[in-house]
């Protein structure tokens, strides 16, 4: 039972952890990844970032990724929250939680979820630099390679 959310506001990781394990005693480990806006990109100072997405397809892609992770790693649950809209350096972008009976599945599930989220969910980042210039972030081949090591989705 994945929890999939796309929202403009920040998320509360502590509350999400509590929600993921509420009422159950079979979870032995939770893996997590939080992505945060940095204040530089390739050495250039960043003042703001805007995240655009494709409403509808986003939730569809995230659900598919979550279901694949739950099946493959025997997850007891997972949470994917991705923010959209304007963000400042230091702000959270994305939260991934993966709950499993044991540690390896929780950690592998977390890596799988964020790797596929970065390559298959329709989000796009635009950065604003300190000199006023703006630019869309280029996709990284390293991200495709990271996702590809899990095989096809």
């Amino acid at each position, binding site marked *: 039972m994945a929890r999939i959310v796309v929202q403009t506001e920040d998320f509360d990781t502590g509350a999400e952890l509590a929600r993921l394990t509420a009422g159950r005693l079979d979870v032995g480990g939770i893996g997590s990844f939080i*992505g945060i806006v940095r204040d530089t990109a390739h050495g250039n100072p960043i003042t703001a970032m805007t*995240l*655009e*997405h*494709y409403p*509808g*397809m986003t939730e*569809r*892609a995230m659900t598919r990724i979550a279901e694949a992770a739950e099946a493959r790693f025997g997850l007891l649950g997972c949470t994917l929250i*991705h923010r959209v809209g304007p963000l400042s350096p230091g702000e959270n*972008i*994305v939260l991934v939680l993966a709950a499993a009976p044991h540690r390896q599945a929780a950690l592998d599930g977390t890596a799988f979820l*964020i790797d596929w*989220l*970065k*390559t*298959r*969910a*329709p*989000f*796009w*980042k*635009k950065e604003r630099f300190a000199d006023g210039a703006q630019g*869309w*972030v*280029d*996709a*990284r081949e390293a*991200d495709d390679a990271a996702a590809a090591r899990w095989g096809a989705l």
Partner: protein
Amino acid sequence: MKILYFAWLRERVGRGEEDVTLPSDISTVGQLVTWLRGRSAGHEAAFAQGRLVRCAVNQDFATPDATVTDRDEVAFFPPVTGG
């Protein structure tokens, strides 16, 4: 047919969405792109870097040989950069 554009494709086309009536001789994503490029200089600029354009038909990733009909929602966008 509903066409959607995101990120720099949206900026180059000059709009995020348009409704088009599909000519009867167009039945694949690839043919649709060729036809869209002729609609304006903005469309031409958006699709000029074909290697960087991704497509979704009805919210699933699709390749140039995927079939499209007038009832489909087709979206064009750059490689995704979320996470």
